[in-house]
């Protein structure tokens, strides 16, 4: 029984180690900024500014992200890219998780890289608040939706 317990302890240690590795990789991915990311070609963004959302077929949070942009930035172009069918596109913009959202300006520059639904929500709230400060007649922020 002692050998079995030792083996389980070893396995548990391996899981803790993997967990720490994964946590570090996720944190690095979330902190990665849009700096030095390649420009998005006009063909992918309809020629103008756009939101590029990298998804997977089973990503529920991706639907939340596209819905939030459509709701809070009505009129903005949202392009979804399935990272499982377009892994080359995902690699080019260093996408590691879905949803990862790129906010792209009229010149194709990536101005924000947002990993996860919560980061996108915070970004939308912050940038909408900035716009609202500049325009006192604009409407207030909508409530948070899950």
């Amino acid at each position, binding site marked *: *029984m002692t050998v*079995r*317990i030792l*083996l*389980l302890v070893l*396995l*548990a240690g*391996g*899981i803790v180690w*993997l*967990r720490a590795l*994964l*946590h570090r990789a996720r944190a690095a991915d979330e902190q990665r900024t849009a700096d030095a990311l390649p420009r998005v070609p006009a063909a992918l963004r309809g020629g103008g500014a756009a939101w590029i*959302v990298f*998804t*997977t*077929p*089973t*990503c*529920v*949070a*991706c*639907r*939340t992200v*596209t*819905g939030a942009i459509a709701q809070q930035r009505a009129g903005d172009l949202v*392009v*979804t*890219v*399935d990272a*499982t*069918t*377009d892994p080359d596109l995902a690699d080019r913009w260093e996408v590691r998780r879905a949803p990862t959202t790129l906010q792209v300006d009229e010149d194709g520059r990536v101005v924000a890289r947002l990993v996860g*639904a919560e980061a996108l929500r915070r970004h939308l709230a912050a940038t909408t608040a900035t716009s609202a400060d500049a325009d006192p007649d604009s409407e207030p922020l909508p409530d948070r939706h*899950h």
Partner: protein
Amino acid sequence: MLTDAAGSTAPPAIDPRGPRTNQAVLAVGLALGFVLGWWPVAPIFAVVLGLGVAFGPQWNPVLLAYRHLLAPRLGPPGELEDPRPPRFAAAVGVAFLAAATVAFVLGVTVLGWVLALVVATLAALAATTGLCVGCELYLVAARLRRR
């Protein structure tokens, strides 16, 4: 190729804490069985997982217990999950545990425990990190199917 995630025909999303609970119970159960040298734990969990895979989560006793006992105390989940990947992962778990059971019955105990511990380790990894290897396999399989 551009696709629209919102336009896909995905089944209703589920509370991801259900599968996480199932994975935690599976990992602890198999680990206890291993320490005690009690191999029937493998076929028992094969049946538990198999019921959910074959007939839906309402037939898996662990998921049922989560839904009625734990979920009401935890409140609504912060995010939701597509049910297909965890179901596929459970099917892979059933296959491994069925193979382990055959190995135990044939007297190849070491192979039986190796297979059971693979399931226990992956279940523990999924329960503690959210990294579900079986779910990732589902995405790979889905991608290959579309080729």
